[in-house]
């Protein structure tokens, strides 16, 4: 039977490296996925993920009794990833190009629900859309990538996002909305709908088979 996180953490804390290795193997892909979503670059995500595990190991004693290891690990990872993005931004002085707000006005509603369907039974289509969303994520501004990854991968609530990002809950909600809306616009081609064009429910034909 597979040991649970808490018992592995306890053993790792007592110096059992095998137990810590089991935690690394269990969560390395998830940690990497979070880092990749935020930093975009695969090598940076790799480094950030390794650093997250090393820091987690160094601070295992600071992990409060019943706190979920994964949640704690994700927190370390996203902090490191956000720091890495900010360092990179400072070094490149590369302002992130924002999607003009005008593009958000009107159009595109329902464009993705139509090709995907509300009851997606088609795994291939689902995988393809997931892959396109990952690519689209790379084009989003930093603040929108961060909040989407924290919401979708870490599963943080509005309150947790507000605390993590140091912003108001209302800002969290509107930022998330803009992030999703921009994502939707970036995927408009996939749905076969012009980004600015209106699409009512059920009016868009399925463009991909």
């Amino acid at each position, binding site marked *: 039977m597979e040991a649970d996180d808490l018992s592995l953490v306890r053993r790792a804390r007592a110096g059992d*490296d095998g137990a810590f290795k089991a935690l690394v193997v269990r969560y390395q892909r998830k940690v990497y996925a979070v880092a990749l979503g935020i930093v975009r670059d695969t090598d940076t995500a790799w480094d950030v993920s390794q650093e997250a595990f090393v820091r987690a190991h160094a601070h295992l004693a600071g992990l409060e009794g019943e706190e979920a290891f994964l949640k704690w690990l994700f927190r370390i990872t996203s902090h490191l990833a956000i720091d890495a993005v900010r360092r990179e931004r400072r070094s490149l002085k590369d302002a992130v190009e924002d999607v003009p707000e005008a593009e958000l006005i009107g159009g595109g509603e329902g464009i993705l629900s139509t090709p995907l369907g509300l009851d997606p039974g088609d795994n291939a289509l689902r995988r393809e859309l997931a892959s396109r969303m990952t690519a689209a994520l790379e084009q989003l501004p930093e603040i929108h990538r961060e909040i989407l990854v924290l919401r979708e*991968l870490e599963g943080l609530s509005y309150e947790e996002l507000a605390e993590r990002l140091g912003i108001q809950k209302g800002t969290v909600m509107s930022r998330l909305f803009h992030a999703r809306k921009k994502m939707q616009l970036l995927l408009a081609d996939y749905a076969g709908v012009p980004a600015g064009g209106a*699409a009512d429910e059920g009016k868009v034909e399925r463009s991909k088979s």
Partner: protein
Amino acid sequence: MSECSHYAPMLTARPGELPAEDAAALQRHLDACVHCRALRATFLATEGLLAEGLLAKAAGRDFAPFTDAVMARVARRHSARGRVFDWVTHHRVRTAISALVPAFAAAALVVYLHGPTPDAGQGSQNLFELTSDCGVTTVLKTDQGPVVLMGDDDGDDGT
């Protein structure tokens, strides 16, 4: 449209994330607004796909080197900590002295800084130190610096 702008950020709230009155108002708006219903349907249809996409990307990589690298770094930390522990164990006396010397120095400094300050009258006596050089010249060390007192000119050696 202003109503839509108001409710748009609430469209993907999870159960329990909105206050009950907001949730009820949102539902009333959705019942009446086809535009927001469509937008919400899109958001909900793609919920979780981003995580799937990123995890799929992660799954496409070989993580064996990753695990090895992390464990090697952890082992290096262990060994660095272990070396310090071994040194301390094998050099207990040195370690104790190393620990005590700065402690004594700090204590001495505290005593020096916080010790009683002599007043002017007594201090001038206490601070003077008299030394004799071949019984001829006397050097008086004061807190203002050394003061040289010349020997007795009339040959009366002080006897």
